């Protein structure tokens, strides 16, 4: 009997097998009874600072002129604006970013002659590439790996604090419009979290997350990991592989929950990150 025949036999056996089914209504009730203590995953780890594009009043042309109107406080104190109040892509930020890039580029240019003293140009190591700024949107993608979720209870007063640990989830975002072609390709992000729920609180108070980005294309790959605590912004150093060996992409990543997308900007530099310095001497 060949493989196809054996498959046919197994198909017939499995499909004709009569299996007594449990009572679905009863099973449904048993499962429903566990739902109140089973939290749904809400992707809290994506709760990074929103890209707060505050709508401009009609007729306002210059974005630098616009600031949110202060709301009079009931106690008479001058209100304090907290958080991002202007667009991430405002001209002021663009000019600032340009100045930073110019300064870094200048530093490289100044440093280069000292680093190449005594060398014959072009005879040894190639000159380092100038830093290249990049930007683009990374759109959310489907989940491709489902991990585990475990809860631990810790007594806290008369109730318990719950810690939910989720491990092993992976998603496949996409970034077709990334400005630097070296950062185009197949994106993947794995993310593990520990969410802390104080007694009586439905939404988690704090999320500690660890993520790893990987981008692969025909030339090589990039990979980098990072941690978040709550909604803190993240900077992810992506280390190049293959044709990108020796390069590092420093990514500032801001997630928008409403758009389900990360706004990326940063620099590709021809070197690694500086080593951490020694602790200060006593």
């Amino acid at each position, binding site marked *: *009997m060949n*493989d196809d*025949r*054996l*498959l046919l*036999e*197994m*198909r*017939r*056996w*499995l*499909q*004709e*097998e*009569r*299996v*007594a*089914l*449990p009572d*679905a*209504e009863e*099973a*449904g*009730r*048993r*499962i*429903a009874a*566990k*739902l*109140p203590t*089973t*939290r*749904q*995953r*809400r*992707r809290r780890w994506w709760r990074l600072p929103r890209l707060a594009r505050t709508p401009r009043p009609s007729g306002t042309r210059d974005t630098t002129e616009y600031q949110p109107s202060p709301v009079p406080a009931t106690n008479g104190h001058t209100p304090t604006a907290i958080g991002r109040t202007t667009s991430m892509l405002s001209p002021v930020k663009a000019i600032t970013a340009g100045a930073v890039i110019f300064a870094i580029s200048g530093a490289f240019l100044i440093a280069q002659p000292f680093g190449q003293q005594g060398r014959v140009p072009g005879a040894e190591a190639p000159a380092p590439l100038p830093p290249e700024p990049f930007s683009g949107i990374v759109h959310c993608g*489907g*989940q*491709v*790996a*489902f991990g585990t*979720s475990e809860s631990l209870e810790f007594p806290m007063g008369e109730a318990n604090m719950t810690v939910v640990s989720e491990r092993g989830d992976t998603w496949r975002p996409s970034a077709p419009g990334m400005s630097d072609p070296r950062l185009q390709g197949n994106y993947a992000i794995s993310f593990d979290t520990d969410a802390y729920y104080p007694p009586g609180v439905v939404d988690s108070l704090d999320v500690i997350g660890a993520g790893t980005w990987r981008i692969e294309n025909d030339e090589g790959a990039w990979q980098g990991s990072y941690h978040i605590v709550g909604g803190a912004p993240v900077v992810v150093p992506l280390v190049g592989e293959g044709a990108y060996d020796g390069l590092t992409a420093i990514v500032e990543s801001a997630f928008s929950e409403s758009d389900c997308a990360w706004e990326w900007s940063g620099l590709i530099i021809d070197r690694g990150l500086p080593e951490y310095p020694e602790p200060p001497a006593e």
Partner: protein
Amino acid sequence: MDQDLVVRAQHDDQQAFQSLTVAHHARLYRVAYGILRDRHLAEDATQQAFLDIWRNLPTLEDPSRFSGWSYRILVRACYAEARRKPDWAREGDIGPSHVPAAPDEYDSVVDRDQLERGFRHLSVEHRTIIVLRCLLDLPMEQVAEALGIPEGTVGSRLSRAVKAMRAALEAESRTSTTISTTMRHEVSR
């Protein structure tokens, strides 16, 4: 109807999820039993799968893909159940959950019991791919999605599973022959 229930359940509607559970329980239990060959393990795996489905439902982007997506979670629950009980492969019941068909309904080259015994020797991964392909008749693409493996790997894994099944059947056959020969010798003494 199902999609409406899925969307409501994604937004924490427990009543909608209970309806979804009742509607899909038989479908998932049938697959779990096919893989695990034990009604208690299959019930546990199915229940765990529904709880995992509930937990992960908000991450399902396209509610119309609920059925295929739920197979993927069920497969994971079956793997976990098999790991949790190391002796699962040889045990298993052919109790009330398994209703034998009338003999004349099963005219096959390979005996039903032989298939059952051979199947129990397979790894959970091999059982799963056979069940998805033979019991559910899922196309390769959906099998790949349910198993979380590339589509190209499905064919090779299925081929290995069939070869493992053939080897198990041959081993069963040799064991049966040896036993019957030994018994004949004992009787003739």
